[in-house]
């Protein structure tokens, strides 16, 4: 059982290096919503993105047609990224568990956490991440987020290529312990226990 209060970098790294297609449940066409810019960033970093939102069927998000539900994907998908509040997680996970083949990863967005739903997914071998943003984690492990003064908690003495549009970045930097954000993880845990 994964400790959902503090994920090892290798766990997140393995997921982001491994998955190729991501269905984003709750993707928004409104360009100031976090789901919109996470979708756009992950598409730019080479993931095959599928927007899932029943309210926008018939429209496109950055050239990809919206679908109403996970069962409309019509083929295998590696990861489900859920952009919904904690209270709306379980039905999405239940639907994901009906897919054949099963997705490899279920990811719940920053602020979203449902431990019961996570346990059900993990019981059939699906990896789960909660209360994280894949854009932030990709930016952190590649150190691209360092432009914003964020502690990537990684080091590298290697010269990386300058990032360009559509380029996959290396996530294989050394993770650091002295620079970990233990206090922040503890605060998130306390918050989730209170709610």
């Amino acid at each position, binding site marked *: 059982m994964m400790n959902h209060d503090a994920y090892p970098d290798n766990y997140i790294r393995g997921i982001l290096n491994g998955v190729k297609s991501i269905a984003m449940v709750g993707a928004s066409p409104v360009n100031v919503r976090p789901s919109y810019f996470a979708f756009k960033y992950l598409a730019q970093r080479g993931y095959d993105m599928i927007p899932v939102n029943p309210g926008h069927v018939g429209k496109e998000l950055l050239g990809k047609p919206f679908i109403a539900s996970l069962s409309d994907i019509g083929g295998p998908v590696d990861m489900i990224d859920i952009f919904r509040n904690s209270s709306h997680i379980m039905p999405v996970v239940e639907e994901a568990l009906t897919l054949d083949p099963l997705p490899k990863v279920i990811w719940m967005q920053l602020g979203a956490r449902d431990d019961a739903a996570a346990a059900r997914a993990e019981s059939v071998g699906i990896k789960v991440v909660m209360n994280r943003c894949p854009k932030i984690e990709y930016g952190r492990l590649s150190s691209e987020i360092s432009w914003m*003064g964020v502690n990537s908690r990684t080091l590298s003495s290697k010269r990386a290529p300058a990032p360009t549009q559509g380029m996959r970045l290396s996530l294989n930097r050394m*993770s650091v312990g002295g620079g970990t954000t233990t206090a*922040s993880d503890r605060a998130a845990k306390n918050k989730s226990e209170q709610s």
Partner: protein
Amino acid sequence: MSDRLPGFSTLAVHAGAQPDPTTGARATPIYQTTSFVFNDADHAASLFGLQAFGNIYTRIGNPTNAVLEERVAALEGGTAALAVASGHAAQVVVLQQLLQPGDEFIAARKLYGGSINQFTHAFKSFGWNVVWADPDDIASFERAVTPRTKAIFIESIANPAGSITDIEAISTVARKAGVPLIVDNTLASPYLIRPIDHGADIVVHSLTKFLGGHGNSLGGIIVDAGTFDWSTGGKYPMLSEPRPEYHGIRLQETFGNFAFAIACRVLGLRDLGPALSPFNAFMILTGIETLPLRMQKHCDNAKAVAEFLAGHPAVASVSYAGLPSDKYNQLARKYAPKGAGAVFTFSLKGGYDAGVNLVSKLQLFSHLANVGDTRSLVIHPASTTHSQLDDAAKIKSGAGPDVVRLSVGIEDKEDLIADLEQALGA
């Protein structure tokens, strides 16, 4: 790739820095430019909308400064940081995110004189009302809490007397009041104390002091611990409410545990303007590489100098938390076991005149208004850094008329003691 855990000295050299992608330069380049070209109109819009990682304009962010920010965030164990032009600028930017006009914040009475001045006078004109509390009396912080309290501000090692603040006890008060604890960690540096480990939610520094360490460059920094939940109760609208200047983005929702650092950047630095020069960031980064070595030497020298002064017949008292007899020695053992810092005060039996005489006779100690330089420094706070306080406030903040403050450098300790001996002797 295993999750190996490098130590503090490794982070001091490496965190945030990597070879330049374009040239392979190993030292961090000084990106002395105002602005950065966009790939296309969409890229520009994404950057301005906070949707993409990248650079726009040096008032908002700069690649040299970003290395400094990540390095200090890593050394403090925070989620992110923002570098600004000075320690004072850091304080303005932090409180701008937390206080609306008419709000209050509680501050420890023992602070750098410039901060007491800034809080008392400059911030009053913004409608930010400081309420003073005594760091030696934790209950005085509890009594100061009102429904308008938005933050608590303390120094980890307090200027000028080097007293140690019980960070954990005050963090308990802050947690109970539902407000963030801001700790100025300038005199300790993260080598001696990491306030986030003891409950701080925000750490600020004057980088000008021990972090830069060479007395050549001003700078300040804000570190976000990522520990505070800004979303509850609408108490911190800069973080929890849709921001009209960014098309309705909510910063906490979007940036999670580093939202405060982002708010300081995109609402504080962007609009108030106290950007750090990339050249200064480079100088300070170079200083930080040797922080662990310097800080240990500063502390070892300070302890030797304090012991010498404590045994000198002309000295009335020494206030240094590293001495076993000092009232803050227990707190120093708990919070700063590697050393109690290098800034402290002592008083002379001859009073004010003896202090002036001492300062004029010293040959190695420089008489100036800074601390945390490689060089040893001396000042008479009552007539300089704390001169704008009235006499009662001077004494309360540890800067009475007979008090001399030292910032002990990294010279040979025997030479510093000999200098003090000749100046005290005659």
